[in-house]
């Protein structure tokens, strides 16, 4: 299925969970936060939450900013 991760489209296997997605793309799992379809998913729920078809997933961290 197709998803959009941080603005880029990717093909992933159906049934992939959020923690598997983060691991697959070698994203850091500390100091980050994740939203799927504009809803924050707490770190504690990544393992039990499946990525939805056509999901828009954002993984963010702190960066320099005023």
């Amino acid at each position, binding site marked *: 299925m197709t998803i959009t991760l*941080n*603005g880029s489209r990717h093909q992933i296997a159906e049934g992939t969970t959020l923690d598997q997605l983060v691991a697959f*793309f*070698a*994203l*850091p799992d500390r*100091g*980050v*936060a*994740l*939203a799927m379809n*504009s809803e*924050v998913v*707490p*770190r504690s729920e990544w393992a039990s939450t499946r990525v939805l078809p056509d999901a828009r997933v*954002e*993984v*963010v*961290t*702190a*960066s*320099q*900013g*005023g």
Partner: protein
Amino acid sequence: MTFLDLGCVAPVVSSVPDPFVIAGEQLSSRLLLGTGGATSLTTLENAVRASGSALVTVAIRRVSLTADDSVLAVLSRTGVRLLPNTAGCFTSREAVLTAKLAREVLGTTWVKLEVIADDQTLLPDAVELLDAAERLVDDGFTVLPYTNDDPVLARRLADLGCAAIMPLGSPIGSGLGIRNPHAIEMIREAVDVPVILDAGIGTASDAALAMELGCDAVLIASAVTRAENPAAMATAMKHAVLAGRLARTSGRIPVRRLARASSPTEGVIQG
């Protein structure tokens, strides 16, 4: 009294309690530092240390696989508290989501709320800002909104439960200073929460003026991070904020139209 006695002002100053408190939390400095614009993390770290700031802002951005995202590591070394912002958000919806993500990333409910209208002016969008502030306050956030130099809007934000008001002196990154000092004074009078002058400061006298106008603190980013020597400018800003605050609380002389001699008028010799 000798000259040296007169020079020993530090103990006198420190004996006068003048705590700076936001939402019940006391901060050791009235200078907040923004971290955007620094050319390297080393430069940033040196500027943060030189500023003496206890609260510095960070933005929330997509994780990059290539960039070095160690700003968190650098800032945690300095021991400062982090204040995430919602910079880059144009709608209440974006800002609220960004604030919630920031809460996850940093484990803080404090947020500097920015909802801007366009890329050219970066001016706050008052309608979206009020909406976002209300939603975030309702969700338990400690909201510090970046706002226009509008006393009425400031009062509306304070009435919503915002923990501080952050009016602009002039557009972000412009270095134009405080274009409407009267409005800043009116904001100070309009709300009971801390007023933090945010945006537009170009040099130390701007920061001192903000404090003399009655602001409780200032937030400075570009004026420090984009200065030729950021650490030295951070030091200048630190002193400017201290000086401006002291001047504000020391009872300045009234402005007069004509001169008033400071030397005795009696005993003047006749030539």
